[in-house]
């Protein structure tokens, strides 16, 4: 196995009394697509800032591309691409100028930047908008421009903090397609998300983070195998009746989660469990059998939903 591009061990970040990251360990291999999955406030963004060499760790060890970010911040940043949670595109500049100016911040030669900017606009499907003002772009286009900008220095690692939060489904799929192409080209991706479908689509491997700690680690499929059943039966009895029904269906399936609006029954055969419920004389308003997802893994690990 090749040497990891990122190594963190016992990594801690405290702000005054608040511990944002409480000792986490992980490695990221070159070319890997690595995800940090967790709810808001889990410490994902703080971890990303430390990897991005813009936040100093309180304790523990961190190595990015073999360098210590405390000592080699600029050397590390020159090899990273950063897509922050909120777009911070330069609104005073037009689309293509955003790329040119950003490249200049890295001290890259003009001709090289100009050539690369045109390639990246093509990649981000923004070639026809290159003279547009940033404000005129849709949310998805802005996001793609931010990604193009992050690639201007041909980074070895691309950091994406909640890349598709706030985008409509179509824009998300376009973005995922672009990120998947980067992955195919061998760019190392590190991303945070609280969407399980995103993690399943993009991550080779991920860690589930909650309250600054790693709860579990593995590929999406292995996590689901380990922490959930193959299928999930979702049944709704109406807001007032869910907990009452939960008592009556106890014992059905491997495990039951009672949510405010529905019951989740974990089993390898959802249809069979639904039959058992109807035989008990219970008639759910709606029922649905689906495959287990990372959302279920998270629920199992923390007792809470990802999106609250």
């Amino acid at each position, binding site marked *: 196995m090749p040497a990891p591009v990122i190594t963190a061990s016992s990594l801690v970040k405290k702000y005054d009394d608040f511990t944002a990251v409480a000792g986490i360990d992980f490695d990221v291999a070159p070319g890997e697509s690595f995800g940090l999955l967790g709810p808001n406030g889990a410490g994902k963004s703080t971890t990303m800032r430390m990897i991005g060499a813009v936040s100093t760790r309180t304790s523990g060890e961190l190595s990015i591309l073999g360098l210590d970010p405390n000592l080699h911040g600029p050397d590390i940043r020159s090899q990273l691409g950063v897509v922050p949670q909120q777009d911070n595109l330069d609104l005073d500049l037009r689309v293509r100028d955003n790329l040119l100016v950003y490249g200049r*911040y890295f001290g890259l030669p003009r001709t090289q930047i100009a050539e690369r900017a045109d390639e990246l606009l093509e990649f981000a499907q923004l070639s026809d908008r290159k003279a547009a003002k940033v404000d005129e772009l849709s949310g998805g286009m802005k996001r793609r421009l931010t990604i193009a900008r992050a690639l201007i220095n041909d980074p070895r690692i691309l950091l994406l903090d909640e890349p598709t939060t706030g985008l409509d489904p179509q824009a998300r799929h376009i973005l995922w397609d672009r990120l998947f192409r980067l992955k195919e080209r061998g760019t190392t991706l590190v991303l945070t998300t609280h969407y399980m479908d995103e993690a399943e689509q993009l991550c080779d491997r991920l860690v589930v983070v909650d309250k600054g700690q790693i709860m579990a680690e593995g590929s999406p499929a292995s996590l689901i195998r380990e922490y959930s059943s193959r299928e999930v039966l979702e049944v709704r009895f109406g807001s007032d009746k869910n907990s009452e029904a939960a008592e009556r269906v106890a014992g059905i399936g491997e495990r039951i989660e009672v949510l405010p609006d529905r019951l989740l029954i974990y089993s390898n055969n959802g249809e069979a469990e639904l039959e058992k419920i109807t035989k008990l004389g219970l008639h759910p308003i709606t029922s649905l059998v689906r495959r287990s997802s990372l959302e279920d893994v998270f629920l199992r690990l923390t007792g809470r939903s990802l999106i609250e």
Partner: protein
Amino acid sequence: MTALAGRTRGLYAGNTRAVVARGLLATKSNNWLIIVSGFFEPVFYLLSLGIGFGAIVGTVQTSTGAEVPYAAFIAPALLAVSAMNGAVYDSTWNVFFKLHYAKLYQGMLTTTLGPLDVALGEIMLALLRGALYASGFMIIMQVLGLNLSWTAILALPAVLIIAFGFASLGMAITSYLKTFQQMDWVNFVMLPMFLFSATFYPISVYPQAIQWIIQALPLWHGVELIRGFTTGSLDAMVWVHLGYFGLMIGIGILVTTRRLRKLFLN
């Protein structure tokens, strides 16, 4: 020791020009009317007070004892004010917006740029605006015959130093401000400083205690420095004024750099 070296190296990438180039490109999309309006304010003061009021006042004695026409007395003061306005506007309101709303510096500092590159670049831009206002004003002074000596040419570099001082300190102060209400304090300080810094009459009209307060403020030093050059009536105080601005620049850059590091690279 290596940790210290690493941290200082992270402060400055020697790429201030990228920040300045960005600023110049961004100016294209700015509202030019607002930029130009800042220039006219002192011009209007000069015309109304210098020409109008000056006809009644006659001559005034400068701090070095020279008798000069009233318009020639206030024109250099307004030149200093012009430099101050340009520099302060850019380093407070514009910087505040970029800091809190546009998230511009956050983006810059995820690249190899260091906080000192960003601070110096933004200060340069503010200084450029100050210099632009001041050069225009100098031309008007020349046309109106208010430059009384060849030393007036030295007022141009002096204006740059004044703008540099105000821009550095302005950006340092702005880095501590969090709301637009706090930004109003900047105006609250600027207006009385503009009116009372021996701008429109000699400082000798004040009691000694008030004079000391005025002399502690930067605009007075700027006014006296420029007035010495444009009227040709100079004394050793020039060095004190220059020293004052040197200190202001040094403190401003130091504080701004530290603040940017604390805000974006903590």
